[in-house]
């Protein structure tokens, strides 16, 4: 049986990637499972999807514990423990990461020794598109590593993306072709592993809680604005950066930021709370002077020590 896990953020197309790969397997005569798993379906929040495929009946259910292949839509997810990219990896698990770095560079950057492959993706024509061709690329690259044919991938693309315009479809096909080609030297590198069955899994350890009175057992929150403890900054893949020298202090970015992540420094310039900014880039689109730039998230999601947070008046 093949076990593949896709990691991404809501909106990056990894659910679709898992469906494309699942359909490609199906077209080659496999029994398949493909399913997304979200915390709650939230655009920007880390999510994963998984695929199982076998020529025999699959008895395994639920999330994948020992993946043969892990596909990652965005390298910043590796730095985020809660995304669980590195969780439950087996010795043989292969990582395929969408990144502009070479495998060696990325290993060095992440301090990782485990074998990995990188998939370089063309810069999308429009960073604000809601149908990134990334799903097609990731599915096609995975298919190559799993020994599936390009023809099945293309057919699966048409099955899963049937609503797209001809132009977008062509862009997806093109991206899929080139991702498939990129992985040519590694064709069939991911092999099947035997079905293990439930006996090999650890038993859950239960904690028995006594029955309590409703005043104790019903959830009541007494603190105020405790949500501030959540680091939703980790949802970003692009980060807004304000160029003060271009800014007229017009206040529009602050007005429209849905997260309340923009406030003002001592000189009245807007500054961004990177611990909470989810990277929607509404501020960028609304800024009349184009003073806000989208930069690739480098993994230092929080207000870090190097004064990365632009609000220095805390």
């Amino acid at each position, binding site marked *: 049986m093949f076990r593949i896990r896709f990691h991404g953020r809501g909106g990056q197309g990894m659910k679709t990637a898992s469906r494309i790969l699942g359909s490609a397997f199906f077209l080659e005569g496999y029994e398949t499972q493909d399913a997304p798993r979200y915390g709650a379906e939230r655009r*920007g929040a880390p999510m994963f999807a998984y695929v199982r495929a076998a020529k025999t009946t699959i008895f395994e259910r639920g999330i994948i514990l020992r993946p043969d292949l892990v596909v990652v839509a965005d390298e910043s997810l590796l730095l985020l423990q809660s995304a669980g990219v590195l969780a439950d990896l087996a010795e043989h698990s292969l990582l395929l990461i969408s990144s502009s770095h070479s495998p060696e560079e990325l290993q060095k950057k992440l301090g990782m020794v485990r074998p990995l492959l990188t998939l370089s993706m063309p810069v999308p024509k429009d960073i604000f598109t809601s149908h990134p061709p990334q799903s097609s690329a990731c599915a096609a690259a995975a298919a190559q590593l799993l020994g599936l044919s390009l023809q099945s991938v293309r057919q699966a693309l048409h099955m899963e993306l049937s609503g797209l315009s001809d132009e977008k479809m062509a862009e997806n096909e093109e991206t899929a072709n080139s991702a498939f080609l990129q992985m040519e030297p590694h064709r069939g590198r991911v092999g099947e592993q035997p079905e293990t069955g439930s006996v090999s899994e650890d038993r859950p350890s239960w904690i028995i809680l006594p029955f309590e009175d409703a005043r104790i057992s019903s959830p009541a929150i007494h603190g105020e604005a405790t949500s501030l403890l959540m680091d939703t900054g980790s949802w970003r893949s692009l980060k807004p950066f304000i160029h003060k020298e271009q800014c007229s202090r017009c206040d529009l970015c602050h007005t*429209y930021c*849905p997260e*309340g992540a923009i*406030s003002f420094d*001592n000189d009245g310039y807007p500054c961004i709370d990177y611990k909470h900014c989810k*990277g929607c880039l509404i501020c960028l*689109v609304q800024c009349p002077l184009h003073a806000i730039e989208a930069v690739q998230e480098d993994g230092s999601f929080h207000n870090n020590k190097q004064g990365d947070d632009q609000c220095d008046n805390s």
Partner: protein
Amino acid sequence: MQKTSANALIPTSHLLGSGTATCSGCGALADIRLFYEILGEKTIFVNAAGCMTLLTVYPFTPFRGSWIYTAMASAPAGAQGVRDALDLLLAKGRLGKEEDLQVVVLTGDGSAYGMGLSSTSGAMERGLDFIYICYDNEGYGNTGHQFSAATPHGASTATSRGMTGFPGYKKDLFSIWAAHNPTYLATVSGADPLDMVRKIKKAKDLRGPRMFIALAPCPTGWHFDASQTVKIGKLAVQTGIWPLKEYVNGKVEHTRIVTKKRPVDEYLKMQGRFSHLFEPRRNEKVLDEIQTRVNDYWKNVEEGE
């Protein structure tokens, strides 16, 4: 405390905490943030099941005042109970006047236009002293965007697939609510914060049922990139699709009259939920119908005012 900008268009106190689980670019969150700035922490939010119940996930909450959760159909009934309890405590002197709270119902369109319509009708009938905020993302967002009674004609949803999308028409909740003659009623949009702030301030100082329908562009359910939320919110008004209006003393007044309206295409084209009306070829029939309905609405307004 946050610094204020000399040019601040809206309050900058960041009363509603960041760090909630709503999607990146959520239009409903932007709406509620603004409501909270104006209404303040001396409020109790009575929240029916929907996306915004995820604001508060134990032990995290963005609120600084109170919040309780109710079933989808019964937030206004919950609000009645809370209002009654507050009034009793005030009457008995167990709460001081300064401890009184503004009771605020918060529900999605699924509740407001559908399941909760009956309990809302009852609350207005009894003249309940409360504020109702319906954030309208035009579908059952929290469960994967199935259609609701607020879904516009032609939109595709998780339960309206196919080449023509949702066959029904958006219910005219404004008129249904207006027929109850509430103290105050308005439509608002987070993309027009000045109009919105003015209306909330006005309602805050009144007593009785004060009702709001807030447009809430939803990147996840409407299929557009999170960065476009405000742009889409503005286009909804500029095309005439989302009229900004209020109802006071038995009269409806439009608070923004757009003299040169943009074609509805501009609004629809930006959203994946309408893409089947443009690709692979234009569905002239449905697009014409949508445009005609908007034209007719505004023609009626002009003739009536």
